[in-house]
């Protein structure tokens, strides 16, 4: 560090090695975090980011290397916690059956004694107000009843809150994956004040803009090693992507002018007579935009259920769904990667009701190559993959079917740029072949790839943008504007 003042080390992990079977998750990685700094951590899926986080928070014993908290070499989850290390995980990790207050009690062991419920409530309400002023979360409600964005907000607030002892280091693993732009900005602003008060933050995000604007220092990981560790000022988007090992591809605007001929493959009247009707034509890529949780997911579900009865599954399905919350309704955690991939196309893989193993293996091998699933063996369990790679498998599951329409519920959450680019290309070529994609995304870059965009606000479509009208400015304007846009 060029800093003349030698700052206190909060956590120092040096030459850490972790292997899972044949996969080297960490191969001598170094990560030192000082007090009063925000370190951005970027890298591909499977570069070892989540693994090093698990080492730092004590959940994973490194096979080699040293790990010290404030100079002391101790191990284990409770040791990490007593040294003020808190972690917000990529997959949401609250107890869904408990209320917000009760979750606070679990995360904060020091909330002992009588009346902890009220004190826990005060703690989280105050913290939520600090980070996300103007939120509307009821802390007596069960986490199940909250939207995915609200759950993420609660989890972040719980981690930043401290009763007797403020956290020294908060690790945020993809904290904005479910937050819309407004909430994400509030969080980033709070991180800066937290840093100003002497705390430290390890920020992991695939949104490079956040990393660049919020971090003091950026660490780039690749293949289990740290390949760059420099002040954030020295990076820009281009150099950061380059350091991660990606060739920056220029946005190709191969957006085609859609001829809306014939009858739409999918259509939906405006709910309760408000807003604009939804229509999708063959070969179109349609974006559902707007702030998070304004009815986009419900619209996708409605479209899906219209074609597949809720009571009786139809034989031949013409519509596939890529789930956003992969742990909740995406993956089969006990199954292998191959089984997770082939589940949607079993009928086309089987002859006389018996699954043809050879055809299944061929399908698996083909998709493994096509979307580059990072695994030594496709028969491994799905949970052996990193989050982004799991998501790729879910994509492959939908694309491997014969369905002519694919619905996607913010599927790129926590997927790195390289993978995204690959998937975008696959989507483009599939759309050209006549598949229709309906894509809810919270990321503007993805919305810009679409041919046509519907902007949602409060459960109804308030604007339809076509071709060059699709821009961040127009989407934001429609998401916030009052009154009917049509």
């Amino acid at each position, binding site marked *: 560090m060029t800093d003349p003042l030698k700052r206190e080390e909060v956590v120092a992990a040096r030459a850490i090695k972790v292997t899972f079977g044949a996969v080297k998750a960490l191969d001598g990685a170094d990560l030192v975090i000082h007090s009063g700094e925000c370190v951005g951590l970027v890298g591909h899926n499977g570069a070892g980011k989540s693994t090093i986080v698990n080492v730092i*928070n004590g*959940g994973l014993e490194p096979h080699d290397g040293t790990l010290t908290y404030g100079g002391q070499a101790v191990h284990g*989850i*409770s040791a990490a*916690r007593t040294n003020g290390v808190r*972690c917000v*995980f990529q997959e949401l*990790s*609250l*107890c*869904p*059956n*408990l209320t917000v207050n*009760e*979750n606070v*009690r*679990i*995360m*904060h*062991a020091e909330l*002992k004694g009588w009346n*902890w*419920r009220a004190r826990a409530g005060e703690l989280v309400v105050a913290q939520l107000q600090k980070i996300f002023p103007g939120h509307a979360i009821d802390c*007596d*409600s*069960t986490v*199940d*009843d909250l939207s995915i964005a609200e759950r993420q907000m609660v989890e972040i607030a719980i981690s930043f809150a401290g009763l007797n002892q403020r956290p020294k280091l908060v690790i945020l693993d993809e904290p904005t994956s479910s937050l819309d732009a407004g909430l994400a900005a509030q969080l980033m602003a709070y991180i800066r004040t937290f840093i100003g008060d002497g705390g430290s933050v390890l920020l992991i995000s695939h949104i490079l803009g956040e990393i660049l604007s919020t971090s003091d220092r950026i660490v780039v990981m690749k293949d289990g090693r740290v390949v760059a560790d420099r002040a954030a000022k020295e990076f820009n988007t281009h150099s950061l992507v380059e350091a991660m090992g990606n060739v920056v591809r220029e946005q190709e605007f191969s957006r085609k002018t859609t001829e809306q001929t014939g009858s739409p493959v999918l259509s939906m009247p405006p709910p309760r007579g408000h807003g604009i009707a939804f229509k999708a034509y063959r070969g179109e890529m349609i974006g559902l935009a707007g702030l998070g949780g304004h009815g986009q997911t*419900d619209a996708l579900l409605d479209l899906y259920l219209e074609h597949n009865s809720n009571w009786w599954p139809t034989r031949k399905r013409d519509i596939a769904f890529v789930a956003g919350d992969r742990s909740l309704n995406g993956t089969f955690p006990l199954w292998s990667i191959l089984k997770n991939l082939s589940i949607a196309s079993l009928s086309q893989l089987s002859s006389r009701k018996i699954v043809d193993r050879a055809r299944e293996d061929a399908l698996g091998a083909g998709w493994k190559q096509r979307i580059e699933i990072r695994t030594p063996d496709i028969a491994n369990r799905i949970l052996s993959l990193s989050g982004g790679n799991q998501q790729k498998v879910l994509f492959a599951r939908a694309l491997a079917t014969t369905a002519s329409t694919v619905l996607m519920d913010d599927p790129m959450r926590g997927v790195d740029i390289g993978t995204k680019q690959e998937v975008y290309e696959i989507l483009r070529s599939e759309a050209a072949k006549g598949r229709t994609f309906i894509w809810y995304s919270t990321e503007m870059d993805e919305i810009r790839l679409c041919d046509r965009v519907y902007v949602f606000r409060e459960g109804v479509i308030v604007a339809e943008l076509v071709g060059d009208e699709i821009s961040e400015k127009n989407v934001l304007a429609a998401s916030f504007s009052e009154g009917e846009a049509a």
Partner: protein
Amino acid sequence: MKLSSGTIRLIIPAASLALLLAAVFYMQPRAMSYTGLNLLFNLAVPIALATIAQMLIMSVNDLDLSMGTFVSFCACVAATVLQTSPLLGVLIFIGAIAAYAGMGVLIHVRELPSIVVTLGMSFVWGGLAVLILPSPGGTAPSWARAIMTAKPPLVPMAIVASILIAAVTHYIVMRSSFGVLMRGTGGNDRSVERAGWSVIGIRAATYALAGLFAILAGIALVGLATSADANIALRYTLLSIAGVILGGGEFVGGKVSPIGAVIGALTLTLAGSFLSFMRISPDWQIGAQGAILIVVLALRLALNRLEKREKHQ
């Protein structure tokens, strides 16, 4: 007024109990008395205790298939050893609680399915019960008999005991810190572990507590029946699971309700009397009891859907 999902969870069991009770009173108005109510609900007390024990196990995502044989075993101990040499009886019960805690540890550490472990243990408990009491007999400890046949003023003992069980377990499971940890383990054990708690300890304590409630069920059963038999409570395994589900609990996810579980146990007991009053032949009673269960669960499903739809609007 906004209802919490916990309250909504309780509406269906409470409403079905009220409806069933009203039907019984309509058919047999004489049941609407102190003695009548006591007779109707007497046998519900041990079932309610066993249901609570099952609910505790279910709150950490497990299932106890040895509940029936374990309660039988406890009843046999209560009718024999506890009666003749109380100290030894208490020691046996403490050992049984320790065995339950050990079961919890084993299931957690070895990542075994609880169904398999408890199914295996059910043969152990069954065998022990036969060893202790080879043929039906024994006598209830006089204090157990006294408690179960007590006649408090105004409200019969069965009702008082049910309310007491519901209140105590509601406090333990829904209000106390331990209850939060227990349900949290059922909801997402990884996050409980990441927060620095020992999930093994939580599981062991939950199983031990379930063992304690099952022992109380055995003692209460002997107090009512005055004697015991190695097969006295075999049907409690399925009754207790049905009671938890009927009371709004779920098999996984740590979603349980102690008040609901007690109500569920009362409903199951009452369903039997209701069918007798309807003069349905005993051959059909089990089927009819199943039909009642299906109706209640269907109602609950409908309510859940309604709730979900309301949330979306």
